[in-house]
């Protein structure tokens, strides 16, 4: 690097000026229209990401643990086989306390065999020893202050204007920092693409006016998908708000998720 540097030095000064000039168009595109509409042939037309704000509401009391959502997600998004899930279901079994133990509850068992995508085996605890048991569907929590986006070193994962937290598969370097930073375990390093992957809210579906595969397939409407900027008549999101007191996962981390839960228990993390 230190050779021939006379010529290089002169060149560099020239290059510096040149760079300044050339950097201008880049800056201009940066400012350019957020309003730009999708044009590429394969994509949905007329979708404007700035005109939507997606969220998902989950009613734990409605989840029956059938696993159709986890299965549909794998099929819809071509998620690799194995311990890789964009959405999954957890089963919580909170046992009754032992008599005289002086505790409010017994031990809590949690499992999610194969992400719950093939349903759940029989409860390891007999019914009469169970105090509470329920299923909790999990997915990307759509954080307002996403720790995963914050730590991405190259800008490969980002909060899209419509609230989806996405990963650019062509730009991700596969460092895994975002996976470490996600408090909810919602990301994984794909063994196929060697990049981080996560729930995209089925971006290819929602941009076409379809629901994400998990919300589409859920037989009990435990998952309600909605748009904060475009309320529909008799909006299920609005109803969800009115009927429930909502909670988010790990609120103390200040991530402000936009995946809202009704009927959570303190054991759910």
């Amino acid at each position, binding site marked *: 690097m*230190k*050779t021939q*540097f*006379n010529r290089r030095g002169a060149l560099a000064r020239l290059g510096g000026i040149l760079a300044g000039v050339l950097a201008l168009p880049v800056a201009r595109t940066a400012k350019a229209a957020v309003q730009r509409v999708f044009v590429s042939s394969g994509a949905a037309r007329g979708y404007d990401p700035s005109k939507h704000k997606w969220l998902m509401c989950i009613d734990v009391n409605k989840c029956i643990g059938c696993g159709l959502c986890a299965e549909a997600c794998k099929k819809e998004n071509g998620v690799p086989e194995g*311990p*890789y*899930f964009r959405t*999954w279901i*957890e089963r919580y079994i909170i046992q009754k306390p032992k008599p005289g133990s002086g505790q409010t509850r017994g031990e809590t*068992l*949690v*499992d*999610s065999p*194969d*992400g719950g995508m093939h349903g759940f085996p029989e409860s390891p605890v007999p019914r009469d020893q169970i105090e509470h048991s329920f299923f909790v569907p*999990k997915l990307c929590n759509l954080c307002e202050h996403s*720790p995963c986006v*914050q*730590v*991405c*070193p*190259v*800008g*490969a994962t980002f909060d899209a204007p419509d609230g989806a937290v996405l990963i650019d598969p062509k*730009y*991700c*370097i*596969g*460092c*895994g*920092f975002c*996976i*470490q*930073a*996600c*408090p*909810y*375990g*919602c*990301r*994984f*390093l794909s063994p196929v*693409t*060697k*990049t*981080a992957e996560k729930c995209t809210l089925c971006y290819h579906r929602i941009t076409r006016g379809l629901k994400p595969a998990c919300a589409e397939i859920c037989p009990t409407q435990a998952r309600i998908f909605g748009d904060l900027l475009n309320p529909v008549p008799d909006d299920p999101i609005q109803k969800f708000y009115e009927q429930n007191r909502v909670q988010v996962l790990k609120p103390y*981390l*200040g991530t402000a998720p936009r995946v809202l839960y009704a009927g959570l228990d303190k054991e759910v*993390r």
Partner: protein
Amino acid sequence: MTSEVTNIVVEVLPRFEGYVYPNEATAHPLWGFLIVLYPYITGLVAGAFIMASLVRVFKVKALEPVYRLSLLTALAFLLCATLPLLFHLGHPERCYEIMITPHLTSPMAIFGFVYAWYLMAVLLLELWFDYRQDLVEWSKTTAGFKGIIYRIFTVGVTDVSPPAVALDVKMGRILSVVGIPSAFLLHGYVGFIFGSIKANPWWGNAIMPIIFILSAIVSGIALCVFNYMVLTWIRRHTVEMRCLDTMAMFLFYALLVDAAVEGLDWIHRIYAAEEGFSVMQTMIREKLFYTLNLGQATIGTLVPFLLLGSLQLLRRRVPEMVRRRMISASAAMILIGVLAMRWNVVIGGQLFSKSLRGVMGYKMEFAGVEGWFMGILLLGLPFVILTVLVKLFLSERLPTSGHTPHGSSTT
């Protein structure tokens, strides 16, 4: 290094106890041995540089014999510091993006710049200013390939008049002063990579950068001791006891501060006993038992602390031979202990689920990118580079100029 072998022995068959998120149930932790090496190597760089600064900035004359050696050590390790990071990437070919579109809220994005700054603006420059006079001299007297290398490194500046040399010394001092915060920045930021992850209670900790810096200084000084002993042994020189004793003294005090701060961290963790404390207890008792209690606490801290501490009290009464042995043994143990500490931080943070309901296991393989072989290779590479650097720039056959690094000969 032996400390990791034990973890394999501990590995029990049911790999997951309790509940771990489905995405966490992978065969290996996301960040393996390479990411253990990364803070280790970076720490050695920062520590070796601080060691050299003792001579230049704090004018510790006793350490002059190791001044250049520590700078070259820092350089050799810095040249390898990016390699473990690079190899662990899913797409190493995209690494340039980190410089082209650095996402400024990410501690990792700053790495490219901190690294470039430290390598180019601090370490290489300080070395250059320190060596400039010699390089000009050597380029005139040495023929062949070596001569060409020296000539290239002079960058065409042949002015070795007294005012020019005086300027070199002054610049060197300025760079050293700039270099200390830079070394802190370089390694403090590595600590911040882990300390900033609030999702992980094992990592997310405000004093993580400080712990990283302090352990880096300890390991860097230990490495300089180690390298100095090896070099004198190879060259069949006698060890300058004044220099070695001074290094041992700084090593002891650095270790003292490091152990105190790390101890404080542990007291805080145990006393606060926040959410997830129980899962961490399981981890310490089972998964990290050997690397933490034996590697980090006993081999890495307690034994060297006692050895070096006793030397501080009884230096006069211990024969030189024994002192040499004790100091080099302490240095070697500290080097192992700090590696164990990095292991405990990096791997430890991935051995429990973020659901705080279960623990995972880790079995290191021999082959593969994250395996033993690669790790040893990457740890050996800086020493190979250092050998070349020492051959080129610390050759006994070359005369060195009279100016001293701390510049007392000029004003």
